[in-house]
């Protein structure tokens, strides 16, 4: 019997499989159970976070000056250079490529509104202006996965302590910036861990207390708070936003179909204006 036929025969017959592999029972899949009426009723006991939440940008500006992150020596120099470049009219484009602002930069420096949805076992944050601003915070008691699958917003698990949502987030991509403005921030470079306490500080004011550990760029955990204020007018409802549409314009293709064609921008992100 030629060698390749022998291999085919052994594989097909299962004779090459180790004995322990054959004996190992199949691991049962973890099932997300269908929510019950009681699960939905329990949501009514949570604080009211409905409406549209806007960032207090003036406070972000103040925080950037009064409570900067404890950058390590190398990154501090980079941040100082970025500040000087922005002042000189050459702002570094931190949020390039229409990638998500990511966690925790979204919470820290966003200029856009968000809404927060409660469903059984989960809190979901949806951001305006970019369709890819989305945080899923699991409140069903699960743990972080053993094997990281890094994402822009990381893996978030949460629990309610009274009216405060306590969130723990890991497995954020190393490219996600830790930013204090749209022009000052550096990639976290890996191993970032974010703890949050989110609560109503007043009837229409939401506070996000953050503690950020980023050992590749910070010398110590950084504690800071960001403020969001609520609006309820229907005319201010969150609208769809697709970041890439800003880099294209509407046009007709050679067959007369509606399409988008790219426009050109400067290295700082603004439209390349005509001369």
């Amino acid at each position, binding site marked *: 019997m030629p060698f390749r036929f022998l291999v085919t025969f052994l594989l097909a017959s299962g004779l090459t499989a180790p004995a322990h592999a054959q004996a190992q029972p199949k691991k049962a899949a973890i099932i997300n159970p269908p929510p019950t009426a009681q699960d939905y009723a329990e949501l009514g006991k949570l604080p009211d976070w409905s409406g549209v939440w*806007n960032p*207090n*940008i*003036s406070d972000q500006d103040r925080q950037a000056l009064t409570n900067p992150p404890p950058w390590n020596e190398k990154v501090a120099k980079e941040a100082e250079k970025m500040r000087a470049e*922005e*002042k*000189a*009219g*050459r*702002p*570094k*484009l931190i*949020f*390039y*490529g*229409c*990638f998500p*602002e990511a966690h925790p930069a979204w919470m820290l420096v966003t*200029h*856009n*509104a968000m809404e927060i949805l409660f469903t059984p076992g989960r809190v979901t944050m949806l951001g*305006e*202006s*970019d369709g890819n601003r989305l945080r899923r915070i699991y409140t069903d008691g699960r743990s972080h996965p053993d094997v990281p699958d890094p994402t822009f917003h990381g893996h978030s698990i949460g629990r309610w302590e009274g009216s405060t949502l306590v969130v723990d987030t890991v497995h954020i991509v190393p490219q996600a910036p830790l930013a204090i*403005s*749209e*022009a000052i921030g550096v990639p976290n470079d890996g191993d970032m861990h974010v703890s949050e306490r989110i609560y109503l500080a007043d009837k229409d004011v939401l506070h996000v207390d953050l503690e950020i550990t980023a050992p590749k760029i910070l010398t110590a955990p950084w504690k800071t708070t960001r403020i969001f*204020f609520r*609006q*309820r*007018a229907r*005319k*201010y409802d*969150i*609208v769809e*936003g*697709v*970041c*890439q*549409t*800003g*880099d*294209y*314009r509407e*046009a007709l293709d050679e067959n007369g179909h509606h399409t988008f*064609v*790219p*426009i*050109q*921008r*400067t290295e*700082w*992100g*603004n*439209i*390349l*204006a*005509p*001369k």
Partner: protein
Amino acid sequence: MKRNRIFLGVLSGAVALGAASVFAHHSASMFDHAKTFTINGEVVELRWVNPHVSLSVKGAVKELPEDGTALWVMEMTSPGNLVRAGGWRRDAVKPGDQVEVLFSPLRDAERKGGALKKLTVAATGEVFTANIREQERPGLE
């Protein structure tokens, strides 16, 4: 309509060169916020898109009389922020409308671009602004 198509062609020729390049949210420090210029002219196009709305106006800038009539492109914040902070609507202006725009010009004086501060529609007197921090004032609703 035909005239607007020609203007759009000019605008596309000016800004649609080169390969596709995607950007996103950016600082506005490339504009000289210490200066405020005024342009009176005709709306060519309002691009109501994320993350930055833009307005193209063909007209004369009061502070740059030597430039005569030219096409200028103004950038603003997002549609959602403009609605909340400046009272904007997608149909706030349309091509052909006569407007007055106050803006901060690009520091690069060779380019005709700016950050829009305030727009007044000549026919109606309607005013639209673009300061996102205006949303923070109490009682906005």
